[in-house]
């Protein structure tokens, strides 16, 4: 397994380099260093000299990918790409174009993202599995039918509607929780109730139907028939046998998203004023802060690769038949 993991890490390098180059090229197709300077310097009294000074101070006066003005290896080294993007491989995110330490910002902002994403995932998982099990348990009854209809309705509505509707009904009309906001430490709990509730409700339609499918697939298996034949009750069959076997795809599906929980949710964070990493990225795009965009794309890629690796490893843990080689 060690060799497998090592190989996967080595594969990751060219992948991350590719992502890095792609982000770099895409960003600079849309924005020139002059644009970035103007964005940072504001809209008034910005002279060409001020733009040049800004670029010089931050190293954006260099050519993008190849410096024809110098010789040898400096052709590559004295470029914006080399000086700005390659340091990421050492997880040195550097300073943002507005002058803040990106690493420190990421450390600060990942916790609010996680505070919303983790309970949403755990509670959502429990609710989805419970609803799916209920549908399977009461299959072919009015309860299953009405729950499926409800799930389809829930799936058909935009997540934005749940956010605005949730804020309006729970926060404004019923006045049970704050409409939006965030606080540090334990004071955060009352701000998390509504976003987590909305995340769970908006996801229950698709989630419960997906798990129901998994459970129904299992329930037709021979071992279930055997379990019933030896006299187990329907609940015993469902909870002791079906649930256990259906957990393999559920678990692997969850493991892959675990590292990405740090990256946050753009819409939820924006509407609830949660200072997480989702809003960090979009703010950086809006302010043309390339340093942050590049860092966040890199971080996202690394976390996704880790997620896929963890999924592979989790297969071997939950299914003894799978071996990594």
């Amino acid at each position, binding site marked *: 397994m060690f060799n497998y993991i090592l190989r996967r890490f080595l594969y990751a390098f060219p992948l991350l380099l590719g992502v890095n180059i792609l982000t770099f090229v895409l960003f600079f197709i849309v924005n*020139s260093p*002059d*644009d970035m300077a*103007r*964005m*940072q*310097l*504001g809209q*008034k*009294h*910005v*002279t060409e*000299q*001020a733009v040049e*000074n*800004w670029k*010089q*101070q931050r190293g954006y006066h260099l050519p993008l990918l190849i410096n024809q003005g110098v010789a040898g290896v400096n052709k590559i080294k004295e470029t914006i790409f080399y000086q700005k993007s390659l340091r990421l491989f050492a997880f040195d995110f550097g*300073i943002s174009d*507005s*002058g*803040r*330490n990106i690493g*420190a*910002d990421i450390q*600060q*902002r990942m916790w*609010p993202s996680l505070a919303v994403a983790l309970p949403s995932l755990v509670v959502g998982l429990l609710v989805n599995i419970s609803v799916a099990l209920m549908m399977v*348990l*009461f299959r072919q*009854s*009015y*309860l299953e039918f*009405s729950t499926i209809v409800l799930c389809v309705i829930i799936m058909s509505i935009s997540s934005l509607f749940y956010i605005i509707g949730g*804020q*309006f009904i729970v*926060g*404004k*009309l*019923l*006045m*049970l*929780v*704050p*409409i*939006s*906001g965030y*606080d540090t430490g334990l*004071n955060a709990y*009352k*701000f998390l109730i509504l976003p987590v509730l909305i995340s769970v409700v908006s996801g229950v339609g698709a989630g419960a139907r997906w798990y129901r499918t998994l459970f129904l697939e299992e329930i037709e298996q021979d071992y279930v028939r055997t379990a019933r034949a030896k006299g187990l009750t329907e*609940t015993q069959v469902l909870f002791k046998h079906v649930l256990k076997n259906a957990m393999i795809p559920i678990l692997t599906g969850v493991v892959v998203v675990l590292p990405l929980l740090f990256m946050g949710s753009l819409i939820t964070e*924006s*509407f609830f*004023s949660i*200072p997480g990493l989702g*809003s*960090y990225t979009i*703010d950086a795009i809006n302010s*043309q802060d390339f340093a942050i965009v590049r860092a966040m794309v890199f971080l996202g890629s690394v976390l996704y690769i880790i997620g896929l690796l963890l999924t592979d490893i989790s297969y071997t843990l939950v299914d003894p038949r799978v071996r990594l080689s």
Partner: protein
Amino acid sequence: MTSIFKSLFFILSYLSLSACNEQVLNSPYPASSKENQAVLYSSFSERPRHLDPAKSYSSNEYAFIGQIYEPPFQYHFLKRPYELEPLTAAKMPEVIYLDSSERVLAKDVATDKIAYSDYIIEIKPQIKFQPHPALAKNKQDEYLYHQLSEIQMADITLLSDFTQTGTRELTAADFVHQIKRLVHPQISSPIAELMKQYIVGLGGYGLSIKDKPRTALKDTAISGVEVLDKYRYKIRVKGKYPQFIYWLAMPFFAPMPWEADAFYSQQVLIDKNITLDWQPLGTGPYMLEENNPNLRMVMLKNPNYHDAFYPLEGEPGDKDKGLLNDAGKQLPFIDKAVYKLEKENIPYWNKFLQGYYDASGVASDSFDQAVQFTGDGELGLTQAMQDKGIQLQTAVTSSISFVGFNMLDAVVGGDSERARKLRRAISIAIDYEEYISIFMNGRGVAAQGVIPPEIFGFSSGEQGINPYVYEWDGNKAQRKPLADALQLMAEAGYANGIDKNTSEALILYLDTAASGPDERARLNWFRKQFAKLGIQIVIRATDYNRFQQKMLNGNAQIFMWGWNADYPDPENFFFLLYGANAKVLHGGENAVNYQNKEFDRLYKLMSNMENSPERLGITQRMLEILRYDAPWVFGVHPKSVSLYHGWYHNLKPNLMANNKLKYLRIDPQQRKIMRQQWNKPILWPIILIIGLIVVLVLPAVRSFQHRAQETIK
């Protein structure tokens, strides 16, 4: 089953008990033991980029640093027209004019004789900086934190983690230090290049410190800015520049102790985002207690704040409005100001209605809910807002949005009568009254020239109208009929929008940086305005960067842009049309590249004059030239509309002052009562939903149990 009912009972009991409690459930603030503390609750939608007074140049940043840093002068809170008064300065500056041999000239000497103007500024003694670790010293009089080690920094993540703070008296050297900072390349001040044109020696100073750290500023002298003694300093300005006094009322010229640069230049602090750009050090009424621009920013009353008092006089009518009730009282009134990050309008508005924010603007979504037009066309509050005791405040902003014609363009530009008539026809056709009604909910005033209301040179009534676009109907300005515009088009050789030389339809190009989906309706409206004249308009929407590049290269024909005043002087608007500021030729702010010798001559004359009837006369002549030539379609002066709760006092619009917080007063007791009244939780829908779930599930459970107990028959 019993356990389920027990749990339900527990949840409902908790909710019921919570509801009975005085503490509301939806408060976004932690319960405080200091209930009677006067705390202002406000918000910011975009995190401030800079809090360094040398860098900061936008209103959302001034909302903070305006309360923390104190330049030498400030705008009087109540008097109109806007009037400057000393803030950290002891009196208004003494201005000495000098010739090229540095001989002192008389006050009334001709402007062209003046080579330099010396501004001698005397500051008040006994002003102290806020408590700050940069100023902390040990018993040996050495700075405690100017050479921090990694070990010292181990437990420090925030500025507040430093255990010791210190202060010292403000001196003239601190003002000089800040002027030096304006040109340090690491700081990138937006006004560096502008100020180099005015302050003697600043350009050369910038070059001399180019490769030096910020800590070297203290010991590097600058020729045009000089410390005269502990409380006096001198700034030498090239020529005569009366508007310089307005710059001295902006945070760019607020004092900065050299210790701030010495402290914040340490890499160990920069690595933890503890920088001067984020952690200010000033003498103002407030200091930044918490700076988490991702969440909230909290300002506390500065315990070292010097004596400052609420104004004793204002303009007529202020006393009747209660604006002088606090006259002569010690400032500031508010103990703490909490600004929370709030990106979306809807939650912000709802929290304002719940009493969790003390003030709010009015977004389009909530306009009808909040504001209505009264019988005489004025804005008023709806009944629902009046019932809540909310106060409305409106003010025409000192800004203008306009449609500009590139005067270098062969079709719409130039000094020909043909082009002038075409521009005037378009000026009549673009119906800004309709625009204000449709897209701004009536929150704007159609512009008659470049100068907004409340700025010297603005005239109201019949004498203030643009006679080429409006007529006076005895009561108000009335846009000229479209027939007049069509007539002008015919005279220009474009009858019905057909170019008589080519016999083809006239096609013009409108450049704009408004490219979002929300802008489509607005751009379509503009298309229709041109279509009234038979002109086909091609809209070239792009992002702001591309737009700026086009303007710089002169590649736009017609475009939309705007300007917000730096200071209340007509020069700050006329310079947008001054020939030497032409964007293509000189990279200046004259985006239409307008050149008119007489206008330029008058500009030079008026920009060196103090406000006087003579200056007013020149201003009127300049306005007439602009109206005649029509390089702009004078668009709109937007109107700001703000709502304030009843517990908010001393409200008066002041669009120039950045330091209004110290004058404001909050009644926390009234707010507490109203919040409790407005936020009583409603629980019955929760009980109903739980009941419905039980009713839905119970028969299915019973049926399942029944089925499970069935035996094969």
